[in-house]
């Protein structure tokens, strides 16, 4: 026993835990793991992306309708706020039980229950991103589009959708993160995913396995977040800035030097 304090000891334990966890990941990603961990990662990505895709197919049209017409926002906020508060694990088991009373087979029940729970989790962020993206567009831009004779459909397609894209991507981004984190629950109903290794490790007290799988979930979340970050950057560059954010005010009369100082900085005051 050295003169180490309890804090230093705890630090050592944590370091060992992380070291063991990384060793577990490497061992199982290699040939010794027989590809099982890769399958888990694949299942996890599949559940996450399919859920977000289904949620997007529902939430984006709904969000655009709200954003374009300016109606129904309060209802959407109330419903999506309530949906956010639903416990996902409870939802999965609820749908598995509910569908069971209709005689649906177990395989279909667990898949449907899990996807419904994940989709409900993903919808609020995407919905908010879709309508907030449209709402954030400068009203004069929309009026201008209307003034040059665009139909409502053209306004949506050519003005609102492109200009609202950055906020929509933000919504998709946070929805994906939430679903990646929650898809660990799928393992409770025999669907695998990275949650399997966490749930299996708990009663066996295999901390390397639990922490390793948890770290992979984190890594997956970071990787998907980076992809969305990249997509956001690309859209920022490609799409002209038509939101109410400041723009160079060339049409205003004023001394030339004031332009240079205000061009790139936000002009809220």
């Amino acid at each position, binding site marked *: 026993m050295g003169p180490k304090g309890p804090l230093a000891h705890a630090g050592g334990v944590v370091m060992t835990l992380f070291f063991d966890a990384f060793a577990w990941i490497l061992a199982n990603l290699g040939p010794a793991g027989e590809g099982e961990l890769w399958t888990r990662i694949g299942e996890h990505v599949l559940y996450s992306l399919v859920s977000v895709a289904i949620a997007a197919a529902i939430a984006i049209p709904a969000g655009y309708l709200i954003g374009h017409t300016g109606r129904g926002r309060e209802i959407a906020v109330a419903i999506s706020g309530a949906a956010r508060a639903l416990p996902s694990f409870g939802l999965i*088991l609820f749908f*598995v039980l509910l569908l*069971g009373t209709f005689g649906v*087979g*177990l*395989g279909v029940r*667990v898949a449907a229950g899990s996807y419904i729970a994940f989709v409900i989790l993903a919808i609020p962020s995407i919905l908010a991103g879709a309508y907030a993206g449209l709402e954030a567009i400068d009203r004069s831009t929309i009026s201008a589009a209307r003034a040059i004779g665009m139909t409502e459909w053209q306004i949506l397609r050519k003005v609102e959708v492109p200009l609202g894209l950055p906020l929509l991507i933000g919504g998709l981004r946070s929805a994906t993160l939430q679903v990646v984190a929650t898809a660990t629950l799928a*393992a*409770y*109903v*025999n669907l*695998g995913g990275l949650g*399997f290794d966490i*749930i*299996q*490790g*708990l*009663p*066996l007290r295999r901390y390397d396995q639990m922490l390793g799988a948890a770290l992979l979930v984190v890594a997956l979340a970071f990787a998907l977040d980076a992809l969305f970050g990249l997509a956001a950057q690309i859209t920022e560059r490609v799409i002209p800035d038509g939101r109410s954010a400041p723009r160079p005010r060339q049409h205003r009369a004023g001394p030339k030097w004031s332009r240079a100082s205000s061009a790139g900085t936000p002009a809220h005051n």
Partner: protein
Amino acid sequence: MLNTAGNKGRLALGAAVVGVALALSGCAQGDPLSPDEGSGSTDTIVVGSQAYYSNEIVAEIYAQALENAGYDVERSFQIGQRDAYIPALEGGEVDVFPEYTGNLLQYYAPDTTATQTDEVYAALADALPDGLAVLAQSSASDQDSYTVTQEFADANSLSSIGDLANVDGVVLGGPPELEERPYGPAGLESVYGVTVSFEATGDTTFDALVEGVVNVANIYTADPRIQTSGLVTLDDPEGLFLASNVVPLVNADLAEELAAVLDPISAALTAEGLVALNVQSVEDQLSSAQIATEWLTANGFVS
């Protein structure tokens, strides 16, 4: 519902403790988190339970039996899993806890080779730390089992786990950790020569068995659904599973006096009796206190 008389006693004790604490507060550095204050008296017995309904029913039976024998009982139920409550027992905050011999042995001696009831009980007595003791074990057990549907048992004339060796394509369902347990697929192969494929059916294990997604399921022997759904638990003559009988785990200092009250209880609690208690909880939605009172009355401990 809390017993009113017990409540009053506790209030008086609490008041006394507060009074003493106030008197001493001038000179002593009291630790507000110290667990010992208030439970030092041997008159109050603290009974704990796991966050598992069946365990709570047994704990309630112990509690009511002790109250009946004149003890003041404090209930500290739903403490959670072994990692959470064993330290409380070792620290003397909880005096009595319904336990399961096999699982408890595995906690203290993970590498144990004992699996049969009496071996496990003997090994457990050696493995326990000094401050703790187990009283007589009951014949009621709540342990892992391999269970099949009546149709599957009839179709393949199964009565013991070994009979599965003659069946092709057996699919075993259970919680994810079963894959790695010594009694999992590897143990089935080595002990009984039975080859199975494994499905981590987790929380849907029971449904998976009934709907034929799996043929054999890892279900606890005291699960009331074995009775209510007419399932067949396969015999385990080779002791693949660790026997796990219900046993009171107690503070060693109190073991002798508690044995006088709890040993007759353990003797009266049978395997069928435990399942019946669980059925009352799951099917009839009775509270653990009601179920315990009825059981004690029916078995002649309370008139």
